[in-house]
C-alpha cells in the first residue's frame, strides 16, 4: 500500500506543486492514456456512452459536504426528521432531495454525550459520496485506514480532538454497499441560529467524525 500519493511517476503537474500554475504542456501520462483508451473502447463497443461519462462528471461536481451539512442542520432542528434519518439514512437524505446515484445504503450515526462516532474504510475508500462528495486523500491512505480501528483516540488526537475517557468511541468500517455519516453534536450557544446558519457550521471532517462542530470553525469558513 502506498503511503506516498506524490509518486505518480509521469510527467504532468501535481497537487504538491502548490506554487506552480495549474497548467501542463506535457503530453498525457501512461495511465491517463490508458483511461482515455479504456473509455473510448467501451464507448466504441456500445457498453457505455460518452454521455454517461459527461453526466456522471456533472453528478460528481454537484456533490459537496454542503449537502451533508444541510442534512445535519435539519436533524438538529427537526426531531421528527432526525428520527427518520437515524431509522434510514438514505431515505432521510432523499427526503431532502439528495439522490443516491449508487447502490449504497446510508447509516447515520449520532454523536451524543456518551458516544463519539468515527467512520473509516479499512479496505479501500468507501465513503458517503452522494452526501459528502469525494473523500480527502488522507481518508484513502494507509495511516488513517490502518489505525482508526485499533487506536482511534490517538488518531483523533492527531486531528486535535480529545475524547474524554468516559465517552465511548465507536468506529464504523464502511463497505461497498453500506456507508456511514456522522451526525455531530450541536454546539452550545447555537440556540438562536437558523437552520441555514447551523449548516454553515458543519464541516466535512465533523461528518467523518474526526473533529467536533464548533462555533469558531464556522466563523473561519
Amino acid at each position, binding site marked *: 500500500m502506498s503511503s506516498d500519493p506524490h509518486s505518480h511517476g509521469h510527467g504532468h503537474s501535481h497537487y504538491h506543486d502548490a506554487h506552480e500554475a495549474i497548467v501542463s504542456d506535457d*503530453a498525457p501520462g501512461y495511465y491517463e492514456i490508458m483511461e482515455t483508451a479504456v473509455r473510448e473502447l467501451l464507448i466504441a463497443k456500445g*457498453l457505455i456512452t460518452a454521455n454517461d*461519462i459527461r453526466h*456522471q462528471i456533472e453528478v*460528481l461536481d454537484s456533490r459537496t459536504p454542503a449537502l451533508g451539512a444541510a442534512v445535519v442542520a435539519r436533524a438538529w432542528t427537526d426531531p421528527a426528521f432526525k428520527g427518520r434519518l437515524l431509522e434510514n439514512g438514505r431515505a432521510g437524505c432523499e427526503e431532502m432531495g439528495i439522490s443516491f446515484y449508487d447502490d449504497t445504503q446510508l447509516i447515520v450515526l449520532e454523536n451524543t454525550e456518551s458516544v463519539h462516532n468515527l467512520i473509516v474504510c479499512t479496505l479501500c475508500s468507501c465513503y458517503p459520496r452522494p452526501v459528502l462528495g469525494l473523500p480527502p486523500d488522507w481518508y484513502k491512505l494507509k*495511516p488513517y485506514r490502518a489505525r482508526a480501528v485499533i487506536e482511534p483516540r490517538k488518531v483523533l488526537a492527531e486531528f486535535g480532538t480529545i475524547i474524554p475517557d468516559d465517552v465511548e468511541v465507536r468506529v464504523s468500517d464502511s463497505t461497498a454497499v453500506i456507508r456511514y455519516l456522522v451526525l455531530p453534536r450541536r454546539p452550545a450557544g447555537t440556540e438562536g441560529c437558523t437552520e441555514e446558519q447551523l449548516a454553515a457550521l458543519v464541516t466535512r471532517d465533523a461528518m467523518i467524525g474526526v473533529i467536533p462542530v464548533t462555533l469558531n470553525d464556522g466563523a473561519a469558513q
Partner: protein
Amino acid sequence: MSVEDFVSRLPNDIGGAAAGPVDRVEHELEPWEKRCHALADVLDFRKLINTEEKRKGVEALGESLIGKLPYYERWIVAFANIGFTKGFFTPTELAEKMAEVEARTADHPKPL
C-alpha cells in the same frame, strides 16, 4: 511481516496494521482522475464492473504494484485487467488504442 501474514491478509486488508501518523493531505482531482472516477461509477451502474469487483481487481495487482501505483492509476489498471477477463476488449485492442491516443495527444498540450 511473516509469510503467514501474507497468507491471511490480502493487500487491501490493512485495518489494525501499524502505520505512521495521519498526514492530512488532500488535492483537487486532476481532470483525468475525475474522468476515471466517473468511469468507475458508470461501470457500476451499467452493471459492467461493480465496486466490489473493482476492489478485488486492485487487490489482484499484488502488494508490490499496489505499493507503487497511486489511487486512480490502480483503478484504471484494474479496469483494464477486468475488461480483458470479462471480454469487453482484448489486450491487443487496448494496446492499439493506447498507441492511437498517445500519437493523437503527443503534439497537443492538454488543457487542465
